């Protein structure tokens, strides 16, 4: 019962966050001096032509009216223009990109496999790598293993993804000619090629992020290993492997899961730099492109979707949290 109430409360606040974000995105765009109709007006852009384009796209209405149209479109779809040339955007319509001539929903849908492939693979890799390194460093505290693991962590945290990415491409792609340097192959086309094209981006992202996890896990583990219940577990005669791997790790993972949730959520919303460096057209490059060309409907759609993922990831974290530590949903329900 409490658990259900806890989850319902979280859902409501999720929705509220999304509404606020979409309103803010709209407001920001309307404060900018640029006119989204300008980009679709053609050349030369006469005042008449601009007015026509603006009316067709609905940008001539007041901002709040446009926002309401947008929200209505999510539930019942929208049409722009008239006659056989009119643009139809069926529900759920998260806007229509007039520059790319496609509904935003469709554009996002088409990019999801790329970004999710990058994000999920990299996340799995960095979670395993980061946590193992952290545990290892904590257990072997003060030894050479600990010091080299932490040196790796500092190096990983300090190196920006674009630098690692380009260095990786230069070394493994061009010099050693081991892996492809760019492009994405759909999983359905060839699973082997899919993975082969993704190895480098996964490693680059994982290298960077696992460093954070290694540090976090190490610190957390050292703290937990000092706890009374660990001493009790040891006193019971459990093997060190069981003590660390079961009793300690479970508690260490709580903060790790929190960070992991929001990291993964963000990454699913688009790994902008990684996608750019490896010429993979995911959600990140879609957003970048939309901002660069002043494509308001597309910016709004991608921002909202990314926000949705982050919010959803946080929601998932809350759920997992509850499973790892039942006190969470008991107290905050």
């Amino acid at each position, binding site marked *: 019962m409490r658990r259900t109430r806890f989850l319902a409360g979280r859902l409501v606040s999720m929705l509220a966050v999304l509404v606020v974000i979409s309103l803010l995105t709209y407001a920001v765009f309307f404060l900018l001096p640029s006119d989204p109709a300008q980009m679709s*007006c053609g*050349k030369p852009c006469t005042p008449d032509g601009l007015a026509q384009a603006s009316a067709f796209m609905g940008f001539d209405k007041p901002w709040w009216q446009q926002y309401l149209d947008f929200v209505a479109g999510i539930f019942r779809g929208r049409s722009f223009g008239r006659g056989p040339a009119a643009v139809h955007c069926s529900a759920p319509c998260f806007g229509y990109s007039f520059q790319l001539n496609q509904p935003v929903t469709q554009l996002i849908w088409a990019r999801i496999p790329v970004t999710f492939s990058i994000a999920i693979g990299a996340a799995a890799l960095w979670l395993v790598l980061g946590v193992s390194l952290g545990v290892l460093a904590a257990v072997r505290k003060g030894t050479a293993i600990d010091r080299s693991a932490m040196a790796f962590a500092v190096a990983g945290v300090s190196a920006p993804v674009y630098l690692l990415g380009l260095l990786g491409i230069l070394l493994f792609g061009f010099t050693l000619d081991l892996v492809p340097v760019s492009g994405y192959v759909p999983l359905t086309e060839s699973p082997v090629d899919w993975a082969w094209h993704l190895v480098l981006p996964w490693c680059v992202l994982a290298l960077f992020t696992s460093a954070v996890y290694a540090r976090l896990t190490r610190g957390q583990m050292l703290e937990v290993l000092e706890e009374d219940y660990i001493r009790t577990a040891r006193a019971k005669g459990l093997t060190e492997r069981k003590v660390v791997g079961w009793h300690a790790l479970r508690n260490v993972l709580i903060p790790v899961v929190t960070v992991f949730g929001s990291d993964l959520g963000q990454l699913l919303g688009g790994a902008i730099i990684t996608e750019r460096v490896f010429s993979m057209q995911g959600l990140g490059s879609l957003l970048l492109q939309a901002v660069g060309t002043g494509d308001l409907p597309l910016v709004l759609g991608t921002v909202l979707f990314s926000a949705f993922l982050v919010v959803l990831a946080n929601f998932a974290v809350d759920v997992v949290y509850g499973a790892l530590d039942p006190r969470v949903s008991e107290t905050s329900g």
Partner: protein
Amino acid sequence: MSRRPSLSVAAVAVAAALALTACNANSDSDTAGQSTTSSTQKGGELTILTSSSTVTLDPAKSSNLAITTLGLFNRRLTSWEIEPGKTAQAVPDLATDTGTPSDDGKTWTYHLKSGLKFSDGSPITSQDVKYGVERSFAPELSGGLGYHKSLLEDGEKYQGPYTDGDLDSIETPDDTTIVFHLNVSYGDWPWIVSMPAFSPVPKSADAKPQEYGQHPVSSGPYQVDSYKEGSTLSLSRNPNWDQSTDEVRTAGPDKITFQLGQDDTVAAQKLIADSGDDKNAFQASFVPPAQLSQIQSNADAKSRLVTSDAGALAYLAINVKHKPLDDLKVRQALEYAVDKKAFQIAVGGSIGGEPATTLITPGIAGRQDYDLYPAGESGDVDKAKQLLADAGNPKLSLTLLVESDPVEVLKAQAIQQGLKRAGIEVTIKSEESDAWYADVTSDKGDYDLALASWQPDFPSANGNIQPLFASSEIGGGGFNLSRYSEPEVDDLIQQASAATDPAQAEKLWAQADKRILQDAPVVPLLFKKNSFLHGSNVQNFFVTPFPAYPNYLKVSLSK
């Protein structure tokens, strides 16, 4: 190419050249890597690497140059002949000639060649061309090059065939004849009909106009196999295209694949490495700065780098409506005080461009070279001071509006330091490019100076002069950034546009060029250069001053 897109393109070009400032300011001759044309070998699979992640395939919405992507599968009434060492020319494409004007220059008649077919085997008729033009008027299909819209009679009111039926000013007396009735006499109409909207579109294939662009019917040597936004555009041969009817396309490769959304740095690296399939590729985006300097020490890559001759004009617009810039002497002082050498260094030295003293860009017929304000490369400060003294030494504290791109700001600083030598204070105001564009084209015009660049959409001096200096182009979205209004010049522009005899038109445009600079509304700074890289099997790859872009229609592969 003009207006907004060219501005950002220009910024990239300049960024590309920047890295060379320190080490290579004087290297590279004008003809570096300009591969010569050779006979076209057939076969092979050409790859084109581009940073754009989308291609607009609907001709009504396209603003492609006649010699790039859409030119491969959409023929128009006329096309461009772009050859190394020659000025650009309008040449017949679907039509038998570049058009026959009536005596008053308001009616243009074209006849289609015989034996023209669409990719589905059906014949191309004049009705298909008319329909293609008509649909470009629909607001639902806006976004393309629309110079014809205000020129065709009743074009202002017409909103496309879907709601308004036929456009009466386009007549098709028979299947091979098409007649255009214009509002005014217009000598550059042969250029206008080379634009994407003048490609034939069969009405039967346009049941869903918004989806036409996903599977356009081809009239050129290639047809669209597949298009995946953000990924690839694949073209293969159109079996119904007949080489004997087409003088502008050589159709060398069997297949052409556009790799979309490529990172410029990685794409350039691939071409420098030149291994495997990359031998058959070229990069449609400018070579980035780091790779440009890397190529200088790599003889193999350098032989595959093609830098255009000087093309698009970079200039300093002077707002003639603002005091004391309304005084001709003050503006002339600016002409002398500017340091063009410093400006050139800011764009990367001679690989970035050549100093300019005129308005019409190189590569365009009728251009005449002259220098009204001879001041040497670095300016003539004494002369500038003298002119300012003659003007009564007004206090000069000017704002310079630029885009907030690092290279733009660097260029602005070169201007600022040059003018400072003559005691002119310049405050640089940089704005995000959308805001900059909105401000310089607004009715208000709240700036003294602005940095801009210009490449016309079609290779006529008309495209250089009219958009920048006609009084009708002040504010309201127009690009007359100097807000220059001179009845004598408007009159010259009107006469030159109306002239249907090219030789006469060229003479008038050259006259307008000089007449405008007598009033010094702008300081011409530089004719810019663009650099491109291609793989070792790519042949017939050249970049002429106009449009300073490779001619896709001629590129072929060696066996």
